[in-house]
């Protein structure tokens, strides 16, 4: 039996891509394997760890819980789309460097996208709000201490 393939148009980081994929292709797999955007990582495949978080029309979503076909017509932002247009690091990325907010880097893309959306909605978080902002993402390396600092530093960079 041959799998039925569907034409899907994905708009990712401002570029439009047309792919033919089976209905069951996860968005995370489509990004990684069809579009070759391997910055989005898959840590658990059931929406718990947050490593695969991307922005779908600006909202953080777990790309392992979406089918590629269901992203048709949405504007997607992945970690590859977070740098400034001139190639320099965005505020959140810069804050991660300054605060040592990453070690192995595997969970990092999901944190960056989550925080990007979080600071857009709340540009001046309190310390508790900074912790809450990342409370749905798992990291096994950093103990979160420096990721919280990075949220606060990114807010500072965004305000300046």
């Amino acid at each position, binding site marked *: 039996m041959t799998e039925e393939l569907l034409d899907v148009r994905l708009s990712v980081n401002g570029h439009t891509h047309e792919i033919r994929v089976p209905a069951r292709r996860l968005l995370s797999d489509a990004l990684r394997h069809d579009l070759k955007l391997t910055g989005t990582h898959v840590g658990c495949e059931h929406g*718990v760890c947050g490593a695969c978080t991307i922005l779908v029309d600006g909202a953080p979503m777990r790309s392992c819980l979406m089918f590629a076909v269901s992203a048709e017509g949405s504007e997607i932002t992945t970690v590859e789309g977070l740098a400034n247009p001139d190639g320099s690091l965005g505020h959140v990325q810069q804050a991660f460097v300054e605060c040592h907010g990453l070690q192995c880097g595997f969970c990092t893309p999901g944190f960056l996208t989550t925080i990007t959306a979080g600071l857009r909605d709340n540009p001046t978080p309190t310390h508790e709000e900074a912790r809450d902002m990342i409370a749905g993402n798992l990291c096994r390396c950093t103990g979160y201490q420096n990721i919280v600092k990075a949220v606060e530093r990114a807010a500072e960079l965004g305000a300046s």
Partner: protein
Amino acid sequence: MGQKVQRVEDQRFLRGLGRYVDDVAVEQDVLHAAVLRSPHAHARIIDIDVDEVLDLEGVHAVYTYDDLVGPMAEPLPLLIPHPALTHGRTQWALAKDEVNYVGEAIAFVVADDRYIAEDAVGRIRVSYEFLPPVVGVDAARAAKHLVHDDVPGNVGARLEQNVGDAITAIAQAPHRLELDLTIERSACMPMEGRGTVARWDPDLNRLQLWTSTQSSTGVRAAVAVKMELDLGQVDVITPDVGGGFGVKINHPWPEELLVPLAARALGRTVKFTEDRREHFISSAHERGQVQHIEVGFDDDGRLQGLNVEFWHDHGAFTPYGLIVPIITSTQLLGPYKPQNYRVVFESLYTNTVMVTPYRGAGRPQGCYAMERTMDAIAKYLGKDRADVRAVNFIQPDEFPYDQGLIFQDGRELEYDSGDYPTSLEKIKALVGWDEFPAFKAEMAAEGRQVGIGLACYVEGTGVGPYEGAHVHIETSGKVKVATGLTTQGQGHATVFAQLVADELGVKFEDVEVVTGDTRRMPYAVGTFASRAAVMSGSAIHLAAKRAKEKALKIAAEALEADEKDLQIVDGVVSVKGSPGTSIDLGTVSVLSNPLRYAFDEASKAATQFSVGDPGKPPVAEDEEPGLEGRDFYSPERATFASGMHAVIVETDPETAEITILKYAVVHDCGHLINPMIVEGQIHGGVAQGVGGALYERMAYDESGQLLNASFMDFLMPYVTEIPDGIDIDHLETPSPLNPLGIKGAGEAGVIPSAAVFAAAIEDAEGIAITAMPISPSELFTLRLENS
């Protein structure tokens, strides 16, 4: 050295440009593998029917044990043999006749994509004859059923070590106590699981293998043997690794053999990327032990004798030998002098996934045994818990201190340096130990319950046998450094570049470090036992020194100056006091390699009509062309880092919820290369420790099913479970064993966790805590039992 230098690797990771194993060959049309794993903990395989598999479009191959030949059909290697491991057993790449844990690989399918490969796995029919499973230490000891028919009593190994006569000393001691303790399984749980990509190059007759490992050279040797290839035909490249914490030191995994086997057979690049459930059930766990302790002590709490027996659950197979229980049995002693010590352990088979090192590697269990004992002594004598520890400390003037045992590397357990009394003073100040009784009373007046715990450890780090490094100063002046061990987030590209920049006198930005690539450094051991900074750091320092010596020799000749008068600053060699007389290292590199053919302006300077004394050979007898340095570091024994943790917890009188109010760490890993990175390692270790003490466990049922094999049910901490702030103070007692005076730092953060939380909860509740981890519901039950 000693500077909080920002990490160079971050730029790549933050832009989504990291290259993890599942990212390798993403541009190519690769095949994907999936594995049929045993759904049963213990069963005989009667038949495997794969007939329907190849009918599925997109399936290229299916392998079972019967398809394996030669060395591939032999059991996987027993990596670390030990004379006491009398009944060591390892699994086959694909199960032969019997399965011994849920998750054991039975069949391997290769297809166009992972979806189809999993469809195919679902079509394989296996008939089993069920055998009774052995789950947990108690069942293993009872030995009503056997895991392996030819292993009596389920005992893989029994090892005893003695220093003095502990049994007599305890009998004669003024006071005696006995403790029975348990600690459950957890696991490393890196965010990236295992994965392997292989490509067979028929033009070069050569295998290229990318794998998410902690030992490239180990995988290379194992794959070469199993595939009957010469070592020179196998390249193993460790790309970016999304965390290891110990589990990825195991090798070869079945998939690390089956992926290259299929790649060669099919002539296609093949990739295997495990999913999270596979990581839970088919990689490795650690920690599970049952301990019995007898101790004799005097009126001050000074140990007279310590007799420890423990039973270690090593799962269904023993590829990593006895490393974990040996570490428990030796590192248990921590900073103390036991006077007389007897330790004996049995390493037991169960029908569960194997147990191999997880960050701390047996030390958390040893620390738990020793520190719970110290607390029990203090309670018995009515003394301050810190004071009882202090009277047992090895003193700073007693180093080197030989504990009289044999350590995990087969060498004497001899501590090189340390200052435990100062650490104790620091941790007491940091956590507010002396002020705590007043705080506790104040909280009690408000109806709140708080407790404080303290735990001390010593960690043998930087074990041998060796690591090596190669430093190459290119004609551009850029410095390329290679060391063979691998990186899983420790920032090696940064700290090793710091060491080279310091030694060589070049700009930090001009140094590029490569790790874990057997093409660049074929001699290496691996990343475990907090050894990378000590071993590769030292090797890189020595290799840079050699490159520098050579650079100065060539520059001295070019500048017609004495080597002793030269300095290297920012990549330029100059005569001290006359900066005009200088030559940059790139030019020195050009001169180091006498040429016949020029290829650019710079290289003209090294051609045969431009340079050299016509009366001498262009390359002197004891020299080599090129501005390179290569060296190896192989210490006589490990170097011993140490530290102390203290925690203040609050327990809810109603719900038994456990809240961390303060967590303090005093850490001594000798000289710090990059304090930012060391603190990051501590943060991560403490977080894993919190998980292991309060949340994480492997919930096997009596039939050997792992009930919580997902992130939904295995409670790995989010930020909400981790203390808001970890107070850290450093002590820097240099190691005399290596040129940089450094000790390892990777595992320290997790070692005292079970001990320190048990102590704090016991202090808050007034109930003995003897089983870890502990959940609110377990604490609630304990309260009922003790009321």
